[in-house]
């Protein structure tokens, strides 16, 4: 496919910085209503007219890839299409309310949140849901704090969280943030949890096992019932990382697999836009036994009236307010748009797309059968180089070099939103990049706004602001 990304600028840069377009210094003291010793002396910032601002950001947008530009098959990221109407729903001025309003005056907002709590509980097979965590990692942290509170409530002091080596990095970091020691579980030969290794790892110190299923190579942990038994028998809880839930909607529920706590990545599974890195939302679902520990407040309904309440032995708050409202309302709308049949179909098509794409590319895929994503290997080529070359063929490449279980991994998740034609384009890009010589790979990409960027230079000499750039000159 022919592709050339927009490229503005001159010999030194692509688009001038705001500060290079205008820098104005004002003397703050002059117009201030405060005594001088309470104010800053001056303020130096860019100030652009509206037409200039519109042009600046339009140009920046044209130098940016997005899921509306083309396939974005980053594994574990679920870059599916974000329905337009959810933006209109979120923009409803009636929803623009302050979080400290009294319950009686925000019945509409609370009804939406209650509805989303309910939908997520149904989808996850969970008994209770909090919507407060503002991202997946925040959900993990919340879920682990809930697990900790549960153990503490039983005077059961546990110090370890077990995590498969191939898990998402956030799992390790979230468990450590909650004060746990991390026990890393090596993968079995088939890419799944090795039951013997798990048996050896669990003990009376085990607070929880964190697991995603399908796992990070897209393979379903078929032994999940045994895994749950091993962990539960040791007195630990089973935590479900919802990053890969897009494989299972309506077909398998974490609650039915024996999970006690889970988070949902609504910006993945439920199609809210990623916004260049966020905001997302990471609601947490739990079984009845853990519900009283959830963050406060939650929403409940009494005789048609919605109210906020604090769960009895709540861990307290994990966000200043109720999380990312604008994301949550879009997730509610998406789930309601699809309903049972749509959700089930979304997962079926996500899994079909991954399998179809895999069947069309000339790459080894060491682990299977896989579901919504697969980890191909670039073999003796550098996966990062192959990925850079794919950019020149007008697609975004998959996640590269992760998980480490697969050498030179290219973790690919096309999602249900890609059409057959688009998957064929993507497959062609995979194969074309792989067929190119090293001499063609190394200088890639050339069709993107910027050529290959010197990462080492950025890290050795960090310049993180235009002030730092100015000081250097």
């Amino acid at each position: 496919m022919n592709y050339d990304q927009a490229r503005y600028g001159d010999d030194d840069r692509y688009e001038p910085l705001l500060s290079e377009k205008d820098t104005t210094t004002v003397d703050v003291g002059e117009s201030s209503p405060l005594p001088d010793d309470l104010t800053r002396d001056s303020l130096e910032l860019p100030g652009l007219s509206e037409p200039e601002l519109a042009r600046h950001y339009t140009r920046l947008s044209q130098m940016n890839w997005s899921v509306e530009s083309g396939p974005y098959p980053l594994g574990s990221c679920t870059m599916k299409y974000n329905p337009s109407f959810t933006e209109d729903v979120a923009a409803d001025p009636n929803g623009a309310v302050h979080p400290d309003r009294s319950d009686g005056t925000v019945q509409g907002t609370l009804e939406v949140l209650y509805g989303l709590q309910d939908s997520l509980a149904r989808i996850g097979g969970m008994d209770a849901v909090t919507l407060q965590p503002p991202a997946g990692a925040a959900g993990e942290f919340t879920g682990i704090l809930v697990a900790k509170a549960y153990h503490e409530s039983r005077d059961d002091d546990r110090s370890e969280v077990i995590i498969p080596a191939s898990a998402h990095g956030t799992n390790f970091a979230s468990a450590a943030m909650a004060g746990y020691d991390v026990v890393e579980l090596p993968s079995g030969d088939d890419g799944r949890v090795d039951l013997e290794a798990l048996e050896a790892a669990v003990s009376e110190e085990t607070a929880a096992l964190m697991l995603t299923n399908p796992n990070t190579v897209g393979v379903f942990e078929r032994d999940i019932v045994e895994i749950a038994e091993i962990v539960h028998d040791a007195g630990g809880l089973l935590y479900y990382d919802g990053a890969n839930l897009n494989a299972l909607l309506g077909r398998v529920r974490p609650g039915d697999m024996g999970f006690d706590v889970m988070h949902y990545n609504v910006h993945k599974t439920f199609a809210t836009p990623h916004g260049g890195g966020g905001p997302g939302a990471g609601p947490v679902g739990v079984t009845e036994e853990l519900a009283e520990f959830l963050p406060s407040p939650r929403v409940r309904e009494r005789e048609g009236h919605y109210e906020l309440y604090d769960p009895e032995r709540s861990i307290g708050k994990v966000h200043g307010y109720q999380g990312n409202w604008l994301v949550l309302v879009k997730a509610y709308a998406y789930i309601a748009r699809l309903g049972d049949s749509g959700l089930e179909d979304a997962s079926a098509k996500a899994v079909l797309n991954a399998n179809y794409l895999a069947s069309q590319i000339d790459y080894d895929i060491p682990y299977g059968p896989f579901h919504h994503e697969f980890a191909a290997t670039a073999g003796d080529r550098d996966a990062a180089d192959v990925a850079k070359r794919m950019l020149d063929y007008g697609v975004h490449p998959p996640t590269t070099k992760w998980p480490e279980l697969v050498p030179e991994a290219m973790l690919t998740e096309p999602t249900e939103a890609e059409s057959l034609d688009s998957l064929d384009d993507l497959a062609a890009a995979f194969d074309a990049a792989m067929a190119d010589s090293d001499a063609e790979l190394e200088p890639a990409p050339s069709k993107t706004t910027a050529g290959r960027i010197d990462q080492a230079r950025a890290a050795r000499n960090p310049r993180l602001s235009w002030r730092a750039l100015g000081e250097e000159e």
Partner: protein
Amino acid sequence: MTDTSRHEHHDGSPYAPHTPAETAAMLEAVGVESEADLFDVPEEVRFDGALGIEPRSERELRAELSGTLAKNDELTEFLGRGHHSHYVPSVVEDLSRRSEFLTSYTQYQPEITQGFLQALFEYQSLLVELTGLPVANCSMYDAATALGEAARLAGRVRQTSGSTVLIPEVIHENKREVLDNYVDGTGLEIDTYPMDDGIVDVDALAELAGEETVMIYAENPTVRGTIEERLTEIGEVASGADALFCLGTDVVALGLLEEPASVGADVVVGEADALGLPTAYGMGLGVFATRETFLRQVPGRLVGASEDAAGKRAYTLTLQTREQHIRKERATSNICTNQAWVALRTAMHIAYLGPDGLVDLASQCVREAGSLATALSELRGVKAPVHDRHHFREFLVRTDQPAPAIARDLEASGFAVHVVDDHLLQVCVTDVNAARTEALVEAFEEAL
């Protein structure tokens, strides 16, 4: 009526483009009979029931949700306490909603995402100008979680055996709860120091600060809207105790109030969503800025400038070895997904205002709060502001009559204010509700 349009059919996901013929062709290519055959899931964990979620058309849903949200009462909000909003110009709405921004992911392939990277670099740069500190990350979730991260940073870099984080006795209760959770696994303890008529009691703080202290947190403006008058002294107490000085503030206040770097702040946290984001039920954007010394301890993503193969300036996520996807349990934070899109909007709004506009807006926050307090204090049985200090946007109101009852009456007249306790209300005024202050005062008088 039969509606066979693909946009109305309810048999599957409307956002999966497959025609039945395409699905059949793909199944054949894969070599299976049906989609169900692709699932390698043991029978015992399959879910055969119904979730019970009724699909709806786009048209139905829009009507349903606009009906639901219309159940929210239409109130003029005089609410703040950590979630503030100012008028967001249409150009910010429009530009930020361009799908190239909205539907893009974290910039793992920088060559093809220069636009967003530059926007985030500009956001960081604006925060550097506003705080005077050389390092600002490209977002935390909100002010409360940013404070939690600051305490964790202080714990990591501590030179002494100390483990106490000192915070003001008057702080938003939600922020305190989040902070408690963020330090839960660290061994750090939170202790409070007293306030003196709305600002920090520096003498009492100095008594409390010592070897045990790893961080002193203060706010400007405070949760009650008072403007802190002794920042430099607080900074001196902190450095005297070898503790970090963490200052909580917001992006509008930064345009007018003392520059954090000039009063010795080591870390600045706070709320940046006051610009760029309309009231959104508490959704935020957390500021995190610090000194160069702590660069490698910063939580969250950083965008840096480098060069591309053509020798041109180009941007990339950098210093990623701090982050969870590389350092795992030893990462500076678990944060991955952040609030990048809000940061984009905030940067747009700041650039739209320019320095004059920002200083004007911030000055308005001082003037409007002053005039409204004066008008309210003329009512019988009302004292405003309670603290004899300068205020930013908001202030406490003491009422002889029970405050909750007054707030209820105000609500009935179409106004929302905070109830702080039995005889204290808090009122917040910005450009958004400034035109309604006279009406508020009238309603207040009627409520008495």
